[in-house]
């Protein structure tokens, strides 16, 4: 019998060895890898095949539960309409909910009827937000940086007659906008043309210094406030802001910056699952930032729903990839990466550089 090396089964055999074995080095000079066993488990599941996992009950409970939940939730909860109201469009998407210190993207379904524009959450049978069609003053779609590297998401801004701005994100944001516009046209309402989007801020960011701009922000982020005096370290809610100069954490209750760190002092970023509450044994994803303090090193820990996005944004800085210069649009003054402005035009007002205009015209000519 000859030993074999290249079949699927032998690959599993080899990967097992690489994941679990090998020379052990004393821990003080190596980087700890809390996430690794997880990779191993995932990968092994993929290699062994889902069927096996189910067969031996690894995921059965989970599978059953999620199926039951689906069954439960698929049947009921229908949006109730008023008489004579008809649904013209239904689309999955999120509504940006912001009240007081709480704000988050809330997922649900957009319903466009001949009377209203509604965001509805089926699972809770709750209308998150709605507006009568005649109250809509203007619509703007703007491309915004997505948390995923290099990706953009289209955000729909709706301005009502009170000049309040509402934010939405849908599967097909542009299609949603077109549908609303069409619907309005057929019902005889008209929208303001070329609306100006009022300056729109979702948090108190009056801590910026001159020339400083927020480059990444998100929903609520908890910070592990270090122990001081007799106070033990505690998790506090707030918001994290990454600017071109600093990483800042704003404490929602004290309404002030409690933590700020020049970005060039960040050494490393790591995420891991940890217990964040003494009452709850559930583990949460925690982002640890290792930074250079005066003579020593410090760690700051953050938790929250968007930890992965934050880790990615910070990792980009650590790996030195963020070198894009920002410029302001010559027409509307909005800041944007210079490269994007020149190559794609301005995302907020539609300004296009003369050179790009020429290029487009040329392309159109040659297409003819």
């Amino acid at each position, binding site marked *: 019998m*000859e*030993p074999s090396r290249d079949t699927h089964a032998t690959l599993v055999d080899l990967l097992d*060895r690489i994941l679990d074995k*090998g020379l*052990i080095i004393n821990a003080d000079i190596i980087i700890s*890898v809390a996430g690794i066993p997880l*990779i191993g488990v*995932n990968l092994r599941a993929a290699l062994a095949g889902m069927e096996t996992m189910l067969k031996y009950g690894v995921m059965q409970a989970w599978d059953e539960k999620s199926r039951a939940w689906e069954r439960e939730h698929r049947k009921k909860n229908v949006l109730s309409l008023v008489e004579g109201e008809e649904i013209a469009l239904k689309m999955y998407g999120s509504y940006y909910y912001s009240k007081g210190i709480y704000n988050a993207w809330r997922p649900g379904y957009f319903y466009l009827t001949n009377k209203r524009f509604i965001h509805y959450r089926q699972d809770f049978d709750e209308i998150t937000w709605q507006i009568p069609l005649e109250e809509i003053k203007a619509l703007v779609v703007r491309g915004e940086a997505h948390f995923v590297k290099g990706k953009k998401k289209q955000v729909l801004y709706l301005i009502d007659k009170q000049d309040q701005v509402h934010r939405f994100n849908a599967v097909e944001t542009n299609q949603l906008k077109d549908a609303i516009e069409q619907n309005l046209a057929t019902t005889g309402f008209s929208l303001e043309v070329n609306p100006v989007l009022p300056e729109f801020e979702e948090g108190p960011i009056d801590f910026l210094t001159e020339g400083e701009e927020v480059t990444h922000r998100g929903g609520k982020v908890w910070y592990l406030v270090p122990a001081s005096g007799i106070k033990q370290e505690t998790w506090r809610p707030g918001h994290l802001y990454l600017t071109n100069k600093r990483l800042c954490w704003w404490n929602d209750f004290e309404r002030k910056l409690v933590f700020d760190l020049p970005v060039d002092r960040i050494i*490393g970023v790591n995420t891991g699952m940890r217990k964040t509450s003494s009452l709850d044994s559930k583990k949460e994803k925690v982002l640890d930032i290792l930074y250079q303090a005066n003579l020593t090193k410090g760690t700051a820990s953050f938790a929250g729903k968007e930890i992965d996005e934050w880790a990615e944004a910070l990792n980009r800085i650590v790996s030195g990839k963020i070198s894009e210069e920002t410029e302001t649009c010559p027409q509307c003054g909005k800041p944007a990466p210079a490269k994007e402005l020149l190559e794609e035009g301005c995302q907020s007002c539609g300004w296009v550089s003369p050179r790009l205009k020429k290029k487009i015209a040329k392309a159109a000519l040659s297409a003819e």
Partner: protein
Amino acid sequence: MTEARYLYCIVEGSEEITLGNIGIEGSSVYTISYQDLSAVVHNCLPKPYQSEDQEKVKLWLTTHAKVVEVAWEKFGTVLPLGFDTIIKGEEGFASDENIKKWLKGDEENLRQKLAKLKDRAEFGVQVFWDPKIISEGLIEATPEIKKLSEDIKSKSKGLAYMYKQKLENLLKKALEKEADKYFKDFYEQIRRCVDQIKVEKTKKLEEEKQMLLNLSCLLFKEKSKILGEELEKIEHLKGFSVRFTGPWPPYSFV
């Protein structure tokens, strides 16, 4: 920003050379030496490779395996490391210095390990059986069980069910005993042809087969033929099959 070194394996040899851009994500792999011990590394950031993307991780792992393999071929003897072993720098010590410091401090131990692994390779041996076929054989071979299975045929439906349960219990016990016996036999048989042996956990499979025995064996590369012959004998037993993998770098024996 501090840099770190991703460690693939330790080899014997004092030249500081590069092996080309064969590392994870195309990084350049080279050696850092202390006297005649060398670490095979690439430069990386001081954070572990992590991803949810299984294809990506798989590629990392196979690349890791390949680099160790290349080093193994080039240097003859290697002490392989597991995936994601990254040496960091410290206050006042660059990561390279740290590696040298470690090689120096652990020199004796590493040298002994390398000596033990010289010219040897690791092989995986997994023995499976098909409990169905084995059970059939057991029924024939055990008068008590044979009688019970004959009896069932003449019983009423309800009684037959009861007898069936009884039979299943007996069979299960007999199978366990059989598994124990075969395990010991095979282990002895295999142990005689190898240098070192490690019993690994058996795994569950989706097929009808069950894994009876999972071993990592260390032996002289050229002696794999002798082991192969022994395994052939097992493979020929009715209801048994053998998976024989390798040669691998000695991951399990460092």
